[in-house]
């Protein structure tokens, strides 16, 4: 099994997509962070983001890294669909005819890659958010704030989003369709249901909402107070999605004819 996982990791790291994705993720998280820095404490429609020197702002800023989930998800989609696109799936199944093992190896590799991406974005947050707080005269304390829990939430979320991508990729097999579906899901559907508090009754059950619950972000960003599940329930929902997507990947792959 470790050989199969290593083979899956090699597949990813012997092509160029992974570092392009990593770079794009860091740039976009950085842009989002730029907005949070610029609009900290600025009043809009009678409410406001917390000020930059507060612990609440640090939490919101830190948690913005969870937006990196989409890039890990796209990477997961590509881990699966590029096998069909370039027909390397043939060689993969010739080497490992027990296809279920291939899917398990991909899921484990996806979790590892997601975790590595999470570590990268957390380091990025550390070198941007901490100076932003301290330069504004605030005090940044890991122990006093909820940063460790948020970090753990980001780690789990990004790791699982890779699995979502693998499941989606196995389902659609077409690379472009898979990536478009992932982007539409993350940027349109989830943004609507998790961005607007009035829709949180639905949004809290979606992966994005569950991820927010896991980080327990309870800060009014100007649109009203969110209504997430408790953190433990968010974790269960998120892992549940991971299992469902892994099951989808297995079910759609095990018996299909490779022609």
């Amino acid at each position, binding site marked *: 099994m470790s050989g199969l996982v290593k083979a899956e990791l*090699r597949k990813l790291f012997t092509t160029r997509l992974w570092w392009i994705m990593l770079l794009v993720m860091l740039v976009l998280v950085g842009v989002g962070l730029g907005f949070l820095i610029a609009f900290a404490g600025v009043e809009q429609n009678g409410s406001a983001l917390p000020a930059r020197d507060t612990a609440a702002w640090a939490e919101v800023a830190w948690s913005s890294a969870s937006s990196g989930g989409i890039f890990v998800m796209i990477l997961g989609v590509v881990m699966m669909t590029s096998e069909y696109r370039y027909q390397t799936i043939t060689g993969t199944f*010739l080497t490992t005819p027990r296809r279920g093992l291939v899917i398990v190896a991909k899921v484990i590799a996806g979790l590892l890659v997601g975790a590595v991406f999470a570590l990268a974005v957390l380091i990025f947050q550390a070198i941007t958010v901490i100076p932003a707080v301290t330069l504004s005269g605030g005090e940044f304390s890991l122990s006093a704030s909820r940063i460790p829990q948020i970090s753990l939430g980001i780690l789990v979320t990004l790791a699982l989003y890779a699995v979502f991508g693998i499941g989606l990729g196995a389902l659609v097999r077409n690379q472009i369709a898979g990536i478009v579906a992932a982007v539409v899901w993350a940027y349109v559907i989830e943004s609507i249901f998790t961005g607007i508090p009035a829709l949180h009754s639905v949004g809290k059950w979606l992966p994005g909402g569950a991820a927010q619950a896991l980080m327990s972000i309870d800060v009014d960003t100007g649109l009203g107070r969110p209504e997430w599940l408790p953190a433990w329930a968010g974790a269960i929902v998120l892992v549940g999605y991971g299992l469902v997507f892994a099951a989808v990947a297995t079910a759609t792959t095990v018996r299909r004819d*490779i022609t």
Partner: protein
Amino acid sequence: MAAIEIRNLVKSFGPVKAVDGVSFSVEAGSVTGYLGPNGAGKTTTLRCLLGLVTPDSGEALVNGERYVALSNPVAEIGAVLEATSFHPGRTARNHLRILCTAAGLPDARADEALEQVGLADAAGKRVSGFSLGMRQRLALASALLGQPRVYILDEPANGLDPAGIEWLRGFLRHLAHDQGAAVLVSSHVLAEVERTVDNVVIIAKGRLVRQGSLAELTSDGADAVRVRAAQAADLAPALEAAGGVVEHVEDGLLRVRGLDPEAVGQVALDRRVVLTEVAQERSGLHKVFLDLTEGR
């Protein structure tokens, strides 16, 4: 036990019966050509054998077992399928190393296999820059990784230049005759495999048409001479007297076996018969192949 055993294999895709009750076997130490026109069901048969396609009924066994039941398939059978199954952004060496990792083979096998197929110089190049012939060699290298004793090649000559085909021919015969491997090679172009194979299995429209050794199949159509003459009726007994076997194809046209064109001409001269046509008929596997597959 045969290295490859196909028994009553049936596979339909929707309403199309791609393979319809095919049976044959391949023994160690020989090269078997799996021949048929495009769409005859060759690829489907091979993919059933390799566990990529699930047959509707029948069996396809490698060393007596179903492919999916093999504990380390790469060490038992090497397969070369389409030439396009590489990620273009990956180098040849990395492509093979990934397969080595998954199969539990040492990375060094990648370079050894590249050496064997003559691609050592291109090991560090991305596959996107490879010609079709180089891709075929890389596909062959991937089949060699586990040093198996059974090889399956689906249209391996596609995209190879004449020198490449000649090289492949020597390589396959070396695997079978010197190393005792069983080799099954499919093709729709007879000329490519005619000089490579020991045995032939011919398939058309999903059904097995003919199988046997190359010698058996080619002897049928060998050495026939077409003879056209107005006085064919006079000529026939004389040709038979000279040792020929004469077949009356139509009025004024004979097909003679056992005599070459010169002998036919001599008989005609002796009998003072005017010949309007004397021709060696196209013979060999080509004719057998066309006769057997045309119009089916």
